[in-house]
């Protein structure tokens, strides 16, 4: 990244948009408010992309399962891990009269029984039981298994693809991202505290965009985050590096290295008094954090004052690596202007009560920050829908948003996935 002249006092932040081959013009608002566009995204983006379902640790042992709903496509995916640790995905729909088979969202079981007429399935998908089978007509049980959904894993991340025959492999889909993030650690992946937003009134892109630029942080989160994400050397929280990686994209954000809780913040100081990372915006331990910092693609320029490496997996999944921890965010469209999302904050199992106290503080702060975003985004969606503007303007530090919408536009316009993925 070349250093270019920028207004004082910020003279050392790389340009991101043009060097990454992106345009600089305004972006139309229609994709954030149009029903017709939403349907195109359903068919051409969510219907064709490999969708990240989360970590394999969410299936903690043999015969675990989870159920994930992809509302925009009307799909309910049953993801299973069998006795040999193979992970598979199926439509959670009975072969008899198409009722829902599994009602829970997660659990343990090697077989599933539909509660309508007791048809039974193994977690490999095979149909293994049909009551009063003799009363059907030439029933071939081999053809009565659960309908599979393409499912692959990469580095402990589970992906599904809703195309009957995916046009590209997961490896092709991940492209450069998959190469450079190979072997990235996933500290404390076995447990997370979760923040769930079952429905909020904003388009899914409006929502995910707010987690992928730091320009808003000093303004929207002045007391919860402001002093940790900006200081006099970077008043506008400019990013420290950023890369387009095929359909995906990554960015390093700035952290204020001088932040210490003020004298008056008695509980914040007590909470962080014994944390070994010295980081007041996280909850992981120093060894885990060092492993993250040693990875070549995380904070690639190895600047000391980084706050997060944001990895945006196209279209809707974020992995955050930070000196304080590791977490994911996933955003699921429910309609053109409603979104469900989930944050999974991976923190270690507390070893003692002081660490547990600190984790409560961390979870409080994250929830406060997320709630500030929710209120803000519902206002933005309403304003976008008012028709007062037809375009938005993006600055250089918002390049992830530009690459996201450019990539979505490309997928919508492309007849094939391979064409959408072409450079």
């Amino acid at each position, binding site marked *: 990244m070349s250093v270019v002249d920028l207004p004082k006092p910020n003279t050392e932040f790389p340009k991101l948009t043009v060097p990454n081959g992106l345009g600089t013009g305004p972006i139309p608002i229609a994709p954030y408010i149009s029903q017709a566009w939403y349907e195109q995204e359903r068919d051409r983006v969510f219907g064709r992309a490999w969708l990240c379902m989360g970590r394999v640790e969410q299936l903690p042992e043999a015969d675990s399962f989870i159920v994930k709903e992809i509302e925009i496509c009307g799909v309910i995916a049953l993801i299973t891990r069998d006795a040999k640790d193979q992970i598979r995905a199926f439509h959670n729909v009975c072969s008899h009269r198409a009722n829902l088979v599994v009602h829970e969202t997660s659990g343990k079981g090697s077989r599933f029984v539909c509660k309508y007429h007791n048809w039974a399935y193994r977690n490999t998908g095979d149909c293994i039981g049909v009551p009063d089978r003799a009363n059907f007509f030439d029933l071939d049980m081999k053809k009565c298994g659960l309908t599979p959904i393409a499912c692959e894993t990469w580095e402990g991340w589970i992906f599904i693809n809703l195309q009957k025959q995916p046009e590209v492999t997961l490896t092709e889909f991940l492209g450069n991202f998959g190469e450079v993030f190979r072997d990235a650690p996933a500290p404390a992946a076995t*447990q*997370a*505290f*979760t*923040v*769930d*937003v*079952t*429905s*909020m009134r904003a388009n899914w892109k409006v929502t995910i965009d707010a987690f992928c630029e730091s320009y808003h942080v000093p303004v929207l989160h002045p*007391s*919860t985050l402001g002093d940790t994400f900006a200081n006099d050397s970077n008043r506008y929280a400019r990013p420290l590096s950023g890369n387009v990686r095929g359909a995906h994209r990554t960015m390093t954000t700035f952290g204020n290295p001088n932040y210490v809780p003020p004298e*008056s*913040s*008695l*509980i*914040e100081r*007590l*909470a962080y008094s014994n944390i070994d990372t010295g980081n007041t915006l996280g*909850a992981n331990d120093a060894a885990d954090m060092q492993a993250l910092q040693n990875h070549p693609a995380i904070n690639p320029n190895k600047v000391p004052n980084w706050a997060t490496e944001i990895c945006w997996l196209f279209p809707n999944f974020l992995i955050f690596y930070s000196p304080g921890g590791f977490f994911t965010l996933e955003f699921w469209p429910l309609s053109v202007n409603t979104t469900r999302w989930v944050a999974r*904050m991976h*923190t*270690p*199992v*507390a070893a*003692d*009560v*002081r660490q*547990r*106290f600190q*984790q*409560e*503080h961390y*979870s*409080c*702060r994250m*929830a*406060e920050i*997320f*709630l*500030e975003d*929710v*209120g*803000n985004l*519902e206002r933005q969606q309403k304003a976008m829908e008012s028709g007062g503007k037809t375009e938005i303007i993006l600055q250089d530090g918002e390049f992830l948003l530009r690459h996201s919408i450019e990539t979505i536009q490309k997928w919508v316009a492309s007849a094939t996935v391979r064409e959408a993925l072409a450079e």
Partner: protein
Amino acid sequence: MQMQTSLPASLPNSLPAGFEALEPFVEYWAGATNDIRWDRRARASMAEIRSFYEAAVPRADEGLAYLEQFPLDAMPDDATRLLRLLLSLPHAAMAVEFHGQPRAAASPFPHGMHIGRGPWPQGW
């Protein structure tokens, strides 16, 4: 997603000996889950939050020191109650130390956001 507790909200001697002065705060502030503690703080007035914060902060370090003798996931009931009470301090601190008001400016309430499970080992 909210978990039920088997503990009655308040009992005689509901906190360990020495912490009697915090007894009046147990019923409201020793919420059973992170999500309940968050919700209680969000619904409280600034005066209520301050009165809890000012009473509990001077006892917080001592309370944590007392609790250090027990495994986190196997505490006696009175210690669990004290832990839950102390875990409301970070929530109260959001109002006192960050916002200067019960909830962040312009953040919605009520809202559809919930802390699901965690932190661990308790999951509450």
